[in-house]
């Protein structure tokens, strides 16, 4: 149809083709309609993230572990500090110590013989007759909590310090960054060990609420607050500095955008991906640090378990009770590996600079 409407034209003439100026047909109009919603930066990234199979698997694993750590202790019949062989007023029953998986203590066997139901010890018990499964679950809870809160702490301090340094520029920036340089070159693990040793003894001697909360937890948070924010601060400062210099910020300024609009529309969206990614990667590093310290015996105070201290305690009985080392080790491995891979996937999905 369209061809028929076209007027024949000489090949090299400068005459305009009148057909180009005809009204659009309904068909052509339909083509111009926007069928799909426009994607935002966040939606775009999420789509890419969920398209990454490994990332999805890791998110599922982390979710399952988190749910178990939160909800299982609520209805589980045993407590992490409960020594099953010890009943007040009676002699200690050693048959509860060192049970293997799905084994029962003496009184429990009697109960079972009478037809009563006894909740099984899924992972057996430890050398003090405490149910090992609930200890692992509690240890996981502590590890996850340390990871989350330590990262939030690092994020808050790093964000404030980095953005102040980046905005202010000049001499303030110079001095603030020299401080960061010095802290950054301190060997973190050694300082952490040192502080943990001291804080452990000092806080325990103070007693009261702080000691009950777990001196090791507090010292880990103090250490993170003192040392680990440095790389976050550097990152955010660098990001703000580089975005501040970009042409689109200059363009926005030249057409009269207010500084609050520049911050909201240009600086923050360009920093947010870096912030999210590095916070996500901070979680496994915090969990790793906690388990490393617990493994060295600077762990949470005794009845309280942590994955690192469980693994460390299992070393002495490694020949007869290998699974006691394997279970916490695999749990740490799953958590740390999943968080790391999620962090990597987030970077791939949200960092615009890495897009091909």
């Amino acid at each position: 149809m369209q061809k028929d409407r076209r007027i024949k034209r000489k090949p090299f003439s400068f005459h305009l083709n009148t057909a180009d100026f005809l009204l659009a047909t309904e068909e052509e109009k339909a083509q111009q309609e926007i069928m799909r919603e426009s994607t935002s930066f966040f939606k775009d990234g999420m789509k890419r993230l969920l398209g990454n199979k490994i990332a999805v698997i890791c998110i599922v694993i982390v979710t399952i572990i988190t749910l178990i750590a939160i909800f299982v202790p609520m209805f589980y019949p045993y407590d992490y500090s409960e020594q099953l062989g010890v009943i007040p007023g009676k002699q200690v029953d050693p048959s509860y110590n060192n049970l293997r998986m799905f084994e029962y203590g003496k009184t429990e066997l009697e109960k079972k013989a009478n037809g009563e139901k006894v909740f099984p010890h899924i992972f057996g018990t430890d050398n003090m007759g405490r149910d090992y499964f609930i200890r692992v679950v509690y240890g996981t809870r502590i590890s996850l909590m340390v990871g989350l809160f330590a990262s939030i702490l690092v994020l808050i301090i790093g964000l404030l310090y980095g953005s102040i340094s980046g905005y202010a520029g000049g001499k303030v920036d110079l001095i603030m960054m020299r401080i960061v340089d010095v802290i950054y070159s301190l060997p973190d693990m050694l300082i952490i060990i040192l502080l943990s040793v001291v804080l452990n003894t000092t806080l325990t001697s103070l007693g009261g609420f702080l000691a009950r909360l777990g001196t090791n937890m507090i010292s880990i948070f103090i250490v993170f607050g003192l040392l680990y924010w440095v790389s976050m601060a550097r990152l955010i400062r660098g990001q703000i500095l580089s975005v501040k210099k970009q042409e689109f910020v200059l363009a926005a300024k030249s057409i009269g955008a207010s500084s609050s609009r520049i911050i909201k529309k240009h600086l923050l969206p360009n920093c947010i991906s870096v912030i999210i990614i590095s916070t996500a990667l901070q979680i496994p590093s915090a969990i790793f640090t906690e388990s490393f310290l617990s493994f060295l015996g600077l762990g949470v105070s005794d009845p309280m378990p942590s994955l690192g201290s469980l693994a460390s305690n299992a070393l002495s009985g490694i020949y007869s009770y290998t699974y006691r080392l394997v279970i916490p080790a695999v749990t740490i491995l799953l958590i740390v590996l999943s968080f790391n891979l999620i962090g990597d996937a987030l970077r791939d999905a949200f960092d615009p600079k890495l897009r091909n």
Partner: protein
Amino acid sequence: MDSKLAYYILKRVLLAIVTVFLVITITFFVMNAVPGGPFLGEKAVTEAVMKALEAKYGLDKPLGEQYLTYLKGIITFDFGPSLKLRGKEVIDIISVGFKTSAKIGGIAAVLAVILGVTLGSIAAIKRNKFTDKTIMVLSTAFVATPSFIIASFFLIIFCVNYQIFPARGDTTAGLIVPIIALSLYPMSYITRLTRSSMLEVLGQDYIRTARAKGVKSSKVIFKHALKNALIPVLTYIGPMLAYILTGSLVVERIFSVPGLGRSFVNSITNRDYTLIMGTTIFLASLIVILNLVTDILYKLVDPRIDFS
């Protein structure tokens, strides 16, 4: 050497000195927060150690003076006597332990660099093929795994289940598994580093020119590409040695290797404060110096880097 480079080196050396000084200061004053102070601790010390410490640090004198005495001692490599190991000087314990640790750490570092560079280059050359993918999956897994987990699994597999190697690191054969456990993380890291830098280099024009001239493929890789691809690996050497030093703490504990790491961990459990202080300062200074050397080396090797 131009003045910019000299200025850079001067700046880095000054920063390193400040850092070491800071570590010593932090160690001293933080340790003084311990009930009873670091030189006595909360438990009673033997008479001989007590007398030696009092004579050395003047424990009745003000804190500032004690600090200066301690600082003076460190310059002459004198960290005082151990609180718990009778009749032993801290520096002797450190030097004995460090010999073993340095041996393991050194071998682990060399192993990590050689294998890491090889695997990384192979992965880059066979990009997106099966070999590349296998190497990348494995190295990603090992990079994310804490060292004490790797070491524990190695202990279970090699020493408990199959008993190929002895579980105690007192003998030479017993050192093999700890060395492998220690080198796995840096090896994987170097593999990833080499792969990405190799891919970048292989995409550059001078490589295409060399190929177009008809240079043999092996020569292009070894002579032209590898040289430039190794620069990022060089920057990692400092952090790698630091990692191996701290990693040896747990690995030596797991395999009962009589090294510095194990004596450090033992000193923590025994609350042997002078030994903790001495070892912290020693290891921290070592890490700072190693980082300083790699940073300077890096700038010397790659002329493209600016010194801002």
